[in-house]
């Protein structure tokens, strides 16, 4: 499998075999340091909206492989303020860099960037649409902590209606014969179009508003934040923000080997008292961003 010069834009673009290949490459990256693998290669990070942890994770991955960095962190760069098109910005940057990571508030921006650029583009979030490297590190984490991806009982909890992370993860996991448990208040449940797609693919799923009704079945519990920005009415937000708060009282109602994930940052969804338990893998999950992003950088630059 060859990913040289390929763009990483959307989880929809990847087959099961391709995803497994990327995870395998990430595992190699984790095992072996390659301090000179991307020597003389330049990564441009174009963050049109701030996302410190994603940006740092890409920068660290590039540095660990011996590559160089350039970039800007916000859209305050003068030319962009003057109304330069994204197309023109990318045309300028591609002359300086070998690979470009882009985060942009508009949906579809990464796809347009890929069309403008002859250098590979990696999408680090385009509005509410896609954030494929997050999805890949989520898969990598599940594979690592469960030893497999197939036939798992996966619970997703929180804002399932607007959660980009959740939607992409459900798409990706659908390759692996999962059983899904969608746990959310009715108003924040998984959109019907996703449920229809699962039915079409003959994937089993359950919806619930009470975690305790399904918690004993789960191998993975993926928790997401309920974001204030998503609500037009602040009263609605207040109603839902504290609905799901996991703490040690959950422990008698779960499997011994349940693993709890969260894309971070958390607000109050997971009580710190759970951090020390074997169930908590969310910090490990965040750290897994490094081998996964190293793998992607090396793959699109044709170095593995």
């Amino acid at each position, binding site marked *: 499998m060859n990913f040289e010069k390929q763009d990483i834009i959307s989880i929809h673009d990847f087959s099961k075999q391709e995803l497994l290949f990327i995870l395998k490459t990430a595992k190699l990256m984790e095992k072996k340091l390659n301090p000179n693998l991307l020597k003389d290669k330049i990564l441009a990070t174009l963050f049109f909206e701030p996302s410190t942890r994603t940006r740092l994770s890409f920068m660290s991955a590039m540095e660990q492989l011996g590559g160089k960095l350039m970039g800007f962190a916000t859209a305050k760069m003068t030319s962009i303020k003057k109304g330069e098109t994204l197309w023109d910005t990318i045309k300028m940057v591609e002359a300086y860099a070998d690979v470009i990571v882009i985060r942009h508030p508009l*949906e579809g*921006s990464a796809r347009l960037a890929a069309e403008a650029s002859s250098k590979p583009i990696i999408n680090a979030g385009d509005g509410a649409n*896609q954030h494929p490297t997050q999805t890949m590190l989520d898969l990598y984490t599940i594979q690592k902590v469960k030893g497999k991806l197939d036939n798992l009982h996966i619970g997703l909890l929180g804002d399932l209606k607007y959660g980009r992370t959740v939607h992409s993860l459900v798409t990706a996991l659908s390759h692996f014969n999962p059983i899904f448990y969608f746990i959310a208040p009715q108003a924040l449940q998984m959109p019907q179009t996703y449920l229809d797609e699962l039915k079409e693919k003959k994937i089993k799923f359950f919806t619930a508003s009470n975690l305790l009704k399904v918690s004993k079945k789960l191998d993975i519990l993926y928790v997401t934040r309920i974001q204030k920005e998503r609500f037009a009415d602040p009263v609605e937000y207040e109603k839902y923000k504290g609905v799901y708060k996991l703490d040690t009282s959950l422990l008698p109602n779960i499997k011994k080997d349940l693993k709890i994930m969260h894309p971070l940052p958390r607000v109050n969804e997971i009580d710190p008292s759970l951090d020390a338990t074997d169930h908590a893998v969310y910090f490990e999950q965040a750290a897994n961003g490094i081998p996964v992003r190293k793998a992607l950088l090396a793959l699109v630059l044709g170095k593995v």
Partner: protein
Amino acid sequence: MKKEQSVSAIKEGTVIDHIPSNAALKVVDILDLRGIRSIISVATNLTSRTMGKKGIIKIGGKNLTKEEVDKIALIAPDATVNIIKNYDVKEKIKVAIPTTINKIIKCSNPNCITNNEKSMATKFYVIRKRPLKVRCHYCERNMDKEDISLL
């Protein structure tokens, strides 16, 4: 041409037949026919064996581009386009919804790059023909028929 006597025959040009009656004026709009100088006749509420009521548009001296034919397909999926040469139907094209739709429709997502980047062409994949459902190549949102607006 006997059965279409309510609209006079044309010598050279295009006859668009089997348009749903209520869509005939919309077809005039999307093809931007109000501005052209040749003879145009528009008929609605004609009796049709297969459709009940139908509309017909005759355009003197004009041939349609592929993009124009695709546009017609989006609002009149059963239409036929007849190319007329010397009062005869020289060619009969059944319009068809293409598998990808370029440029002619607008994404309904205001946060889509296509609605924000200057002079950018749109692109959609048809994921269901009837009723029409498309997916934006850029923002990946699905749009149903009622959300689709033509550019």
